């Protein structure tokens, strides 16, 4: 069961899109998983043939539990797609590490994934009961000494999963409550573990808005670009210049990310948030980013995201939009180390060449993880971002 967002500790299989024996290409969707927050399409990290399905439809398992086995040319028998570290740097997709936090984030941290063929520790009675009731011991979490599986563990595992048919989505109320609790645990962890620092700068958007209006006048309506796309691109380029803000804090150290995948914080109509990643944002054109933005926001709101999108962000952006508050001091999404907030665009008095004029401006804040960077580097990052927005034609 892959980790699909920092705030997930278990997932339920809603649907298998592939059957045993089916060939699978890398990146192909193999299953649909309910994470409490959303239904996510899980993509395979590796090509191969689906050899076994280990978790059935309707079953809920902790993050890190193998859900299927994919036999590939090189990695025969490797548990996949869930716990296999991706070849690409998507560290958020790994099972959670033993926390640096003083106490575990969830009361039942997932057991380490078992490798196929590894001996399962279980009492003889537990084995007999398991055989009688058809329980697969490799999927049972042991609570006895050294993780030994006891009869009670087997009994618990044998209880059929929630009888909700996979096709009927959870009522909105339940979904909203589950999302609230998932956000709560991620934000508790963030404020407990991350020493935040905050800095901000005001960016004059007069040039950027003028340029955008000229561009949009030439574009058909469906291809027009919103200021948000400029913000994403400027942020991504600035993150490339100041790499200590782009990556993860893991096991007491900073791990820089290879690409810049901007986690876009999307608010949902019935409450709650999702943070899908706009992948390789620094390498895309504004038109490509705008198309990605529209696509990903629409799918986030429809609850149709893919695993590579919900897990891969390396830095986050929250944009309060043209009706929101003037500025935001955000909470970093662990294990990331920075969150950039864009407030509402407002006309402000600005001194230009010794004269005061009125220009559209946006206040941009940086919430930085003080373990990974200092305010000085954070300031360099904001300066780079502001500079990029002064040259919109180069974005």
């Amino acid at each position, binding site marked *: 069961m892959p980790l699909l967002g920092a705030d997930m500790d278990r997932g339920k299989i809603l649907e298998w899109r592939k059957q045993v024996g089916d060939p699978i290409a890398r990146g192909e969707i193999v299953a649909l998983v309910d994470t409490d927050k959303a239904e996510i399409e899980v993509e395979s990290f590796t090509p191969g043939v689906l050899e076994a399905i280990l978790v059935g439809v309707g079953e809920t398992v902790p993050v890190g539990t193998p859900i299927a086995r994919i036999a590939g040319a090189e990695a025969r028998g490797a548990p996949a797609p869930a716990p296999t570290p991706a070849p690409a740097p998507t560290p958020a997709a790994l099972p959670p590490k033993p926390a640096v936090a003083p106490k575990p984030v969830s009361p039942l941290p997932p057991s380490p994934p078992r490798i196929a063929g590894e001996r399962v520790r279980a009492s003889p009675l537990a084995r007999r009961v398991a055989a009688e009731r058809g329980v697969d011991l490799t999927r049972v979490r042991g609570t006895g000494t050294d993780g030994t599986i006891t009869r009670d563990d087997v009994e618990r595992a044998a209880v059929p999963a929630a009888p909700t048919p996979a096709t009927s989505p959870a009522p909105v109320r339940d979904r909203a409550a589950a999302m609230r609790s998932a956000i709560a645990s991620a934000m508790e962890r963030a404020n407990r573990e991350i020493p935040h620092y905050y800095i901000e700068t005001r960016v004059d958007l007069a040039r950027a808005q003028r340029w955008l209006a000229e561009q949009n*006048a030439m574009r058909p*309506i*469906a291809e*027009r670009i*919103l200021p948000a796309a400029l913000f994403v691109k400027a942020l991504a380029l600035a993150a490339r210049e100041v790499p200590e803000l782009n990556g993860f804090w893991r096991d007491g150290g900073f791990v820089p990310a290879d690409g810049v995948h901007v986690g876009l914080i999307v608010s949902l109509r019935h409450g709650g948030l999702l943070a899908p990643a706009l992948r390789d944002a620094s390498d895309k054109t504004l038109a490509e980013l705008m198309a990605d*933005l529209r696509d990903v*926001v629409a799918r986030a709101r429809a609850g149709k995201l893919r695993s590579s999108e919900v897990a891969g962000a390396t830095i986050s952006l929250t944009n309060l*939009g*043209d*009706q929101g508050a003037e500025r935001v001091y955000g909470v970093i999404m662990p294990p990331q180390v920075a969150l950039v907030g864009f407030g509402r665009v407002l006309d402000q008095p600005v001194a230009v060449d010794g004269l005061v004029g009125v220009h559209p401006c946006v206040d941009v804040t940086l919430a930085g993880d003080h373990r990974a960077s200092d305010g000085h580097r954070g300031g360099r990052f904001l300066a780079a971002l502001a500079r990029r927005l002064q040259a919109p034609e180069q974005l």
Partner: protein
Amino acid sequence: MTAAQLRAIVFEVLSEIAPEVEPGVLRGDQPLRDQVDLDSMDFLNLLVGVHQRTGVEIPEADYPKLATLDQLIAYLAQRS
């Protein structure tokens, strides 16, 4: 297209973007975005949907003239 037809189209697109909206309670003479929680992406999608169903071109420079439902429907009626 008649104003009634245009109104139906606008509500159809709006309900795809904001399913919680009840058309009966919206005031046509008040700014739409004061009554419905629409961000700039939602507003763009509303205009894209209306354009696709009516064929009316809506330049970005005209967006400020389309703040209320009455203004939007009148704008479309003049051009469709």
